[in-house]
């Protein structure tokens, strides 16, 4: 274990940090996501969970590829500082929207309407 961080460790470190940040955020958001569960439930009842899993994984990998490519394209066409600010605002908005949904879900609403 080298004491001072040599460049390769630093590069690996920041790859790991990016991986972990994305993994945790997306995993938490996705696991709590009812729409995705509904889609899976629909197919899971077909009694072929393996096929469902393969289909869903291929779809998810392609959709995250689309997301990453879109992000890279934005990074090319937009000035970095402006992209960062917009990205930050979007993430905060998503966080607030997600938090509101979660809180609404936790607090049993009297009318108990299924909030979409």
């Amino acid at each position: 274990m080298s004491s001072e961080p040599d460049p390769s460790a630093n590069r690996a470190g920041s790859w790991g940090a990016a991986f972990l940040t994305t993994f945790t955020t997306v995993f938490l958001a996705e696991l709590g996501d009812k729409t995705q569960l509904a889609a899976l439930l629909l197919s899971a009842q077909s009694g072929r969970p393996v096929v469902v899993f393969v289909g869903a994984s291929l779809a998810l990998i392609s959709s995250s590829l689309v997301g990453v490519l879109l992000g890279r394209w934005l990074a090319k066409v937009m000035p970095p500082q402006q992209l960062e600010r917009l990205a930050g605002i979007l993430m905060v908005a998503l966080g607030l929207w997600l938090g509101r949904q979660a809180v609404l879900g936790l607090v049993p609403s009297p009318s108990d309407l299924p909030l979409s």
Partner: protein
Amino acid sequence: MPFALLASTFATVFLAELGDKTQLAIVTISGTSTRPGAVFAGSSAALVLASLLGAAAGGSLSAVIPTNALQLAASVGFLVIGARLIQRSSSPEAEESSAD
């Protein structure tokens, strides 16, 4: 391998994901990260693992996993990332911040 079921699951999940908040987060994180490969690996692994749990647990997943608590935790994650991005975008470009 029943192709029809595979294709219908692929279409259902792909369309459900398109424009979903998770994908917006992936676009945002990858657009502001110097490590798009890591972002792709992280998001794919997370999505596949979440769908593995979904497919395996079937109907019982929501009973097993407190989805609301998870969404609350996810929202905190989004807020932290968003706040850091805004803070970094307002700080002068002088200091070379290593975008994670």
